[in-house]
């Protein structure tokens, strides 16, 4: 039974979709990519998929119908996902949503995936959220977090037009994720784009205000959380901290990508696609168990 895999589709053959494709092909135990869907015949991503022997379509979401697809990664836009989600539902496809649409629950694989494993639509929050919420959750696990504030600094080159035109979505969604998934009473998120050349690796600073700033507990909890994230993002590293100043705890991390398709400095994009694949794996394992049982 272990040999069987679920059929996966990628919607949106841009940088994110292409990176997802490489990650799944290289490392997935439970998924095989059946199809990549775009809307432009000239898409570079579709061409790459083709040369790798993957079925492609430039005719949009309709192409996903009737192929027995089990799981779809949606790397389009929030507006497109609202449309796509209806098709996924009719077709019985589990949607892993990398857009800001957030029809389904916010999920970070190392925090709350088990609780949502049966859901048909799962949202990835934001890249800044995937990078910082694990740290907030690790602190929340040992003391009450009254306030969590994160500053995500990314290389200008790794911020695509979607992020740029919807920058308010990033700050608002990440702030909500710090609360809902990270366990902070109140969250705030700041994003900075830095154009330095060569491009900088993603950097995140996580400030929290806590009840009990016990250094040993926090250090231990954060260290074990970082190890869990490193399972799917090996370049996720602690840089500074925890620095403790009265009730304030400061932690700085950096996120270097795996370089599957996206450049390694794009840790922000890599942690998003890596988290999506990690979620996809668990969901697929669960689907296979169900089919076997």
């Amino acid at each position, binding site marked *: 039974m272990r040999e069987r895999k679920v059929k996966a589709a990628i919607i949106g053959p841009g940088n994110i979709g292409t990176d997802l494709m490489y990650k799944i092909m290289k490392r997935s135990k439970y998924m095989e990519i059946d199809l990549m869907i775009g809307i432009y015949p000239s898409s570079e991503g579709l061409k790459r998929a083709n040369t790798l022997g993957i079925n492609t379509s430039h005719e949009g979401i309709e192409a996903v119908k009737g192929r027995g697809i089990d799981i779809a990664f949606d790397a389009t836009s929030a507006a497109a996902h609202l449309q796509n989600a209806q098709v996924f539902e009719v077709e019985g496809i589990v949607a892993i949503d990398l857009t800001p649409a957030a029809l389904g629950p916010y999920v970070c694989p190392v925090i709350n995936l088990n609780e949502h494993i049966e859901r048909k639509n799962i949202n990835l929050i934001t890249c800044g959220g995937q990078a910082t919420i694990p740290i907030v959750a690790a602190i929340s696990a040992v003391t009450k977090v009254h306030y969590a*504030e994160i*500053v995500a*600094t990314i290389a*200008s080159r790794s911020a695509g*037009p979607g992020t*740029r*035109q*919807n*920058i*308010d979505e*990033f*700050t*608002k969604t990440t702030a909500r994720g710090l609360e809902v998934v990270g366990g902070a009473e109140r969250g*705030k998120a*700041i*994003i*900075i*784009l*830095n*154009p*330095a050349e060569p491009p900088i690796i993603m*950097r995140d*600073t996580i*400030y929290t*205000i806590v009840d009990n700033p016990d250094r040993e507990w926090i250090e231990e909890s954060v260290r074990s959380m970082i190890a869990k994230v490193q399972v799917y993002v090996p370049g996720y590293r602690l*840089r*500074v901290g925890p*620095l403790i*100043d009265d009730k*304030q705890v*400061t932690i*700085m991390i950096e996120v270097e990508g795996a370089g599957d398709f996206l450049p390694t400095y794009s840790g922000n994009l890599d942690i998003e696609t890596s988290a999506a694949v990690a979620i996809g794996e668990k969901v697929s394992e669960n689907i296979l168990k169900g089919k076997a049982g």
Partner: protein
Amino acid sequence: MNMNRRIRIVDTTLRDGSHAVKHQFELEDIERITSALNNANVYAIEISHGDGLAGSSIQYGWAKHSDDARLAVAQKVVDRSKITVLLLPGIGTRDDLKLSIERGAQVARIATHVTEADISEQHIRMAKDMGLEVMTFLMLAHMEPPEKMLEQAKLMEGYGADVVYVVDSAGAMIPDDVKVRIGLLKKKMQVEVGFHGHNNLGLAIGNTIAAVQEGATVIDGTLGGLGAGAGNAPTEVLAAVLDKMGYVTGIDLYKIMDAAEDIVRPIMRRPQVIDRSSLILGYAGVYSSFLLHTYRAVEKFDVDPRDVLVELGRRRVVGGQEDMIIDVAHELSQKKNR
């Protein structure tokens, strides 16, 4: 009046000056300063956290009062000047801007790093749709060649900006740098061009005059020069110099001098001078508001503030990256103790 000789001054004591008081302005001070600027007939009065709307944070410093409370007291005393607010996309959002428009803001100022204009499109369009005048900032303008800046300025013009500013956030420009940038924007664009200077190299007034001579028609100042780093171009000095040169600002010279001397100077927490660290800001090209955060960090990590600022310049950090001060100070102290 010759229209070319008309210069509009935006006073940003209550925004850029907020850095110099660590965002701790009292509501009474805000009311008195706003009232004095209004009575001196300044074109617009900028009121925000130093890092713009929603800037109150661990990263940039908690403000004593909310955006809303500050605007509420200012709105009460203004009948001639316009109230303006600053928004940095990535920190504040359109929601914050909407709230301040409800609180009487008539001019929106939207700021991005000099290479990142396209993150401001939604904010500029919304402010225009809501009937505001929109002035946009290209910050740390010294970090890119003039042609790059022009390309970014044209984006902002396309989104609907009424004025595009060259912003010397690090006080790192010399008059020739200002002239070439303002001159290029004037030549290639339809919109008005503005300039915002800092005094880290002692050139805030000189650079602003250079900008005006190249055609800038909107300029920033603060009372007594109160502001980030070594401060800004003093509004009262700009008013006097421009008057002497035959430009018309509409400002009452005695009233603006009195506002600086009697209201702002007594509440300064430190003399607004070019000390060695603010000189390094200008020399190394580092964002002026990093100064007081750097002083705080070096106390904790026991390193020379100049070393921290030079390293920040080397790393080409941009506005808003105050967390890198801690990163650098921490790293330098570890090297030192090794």
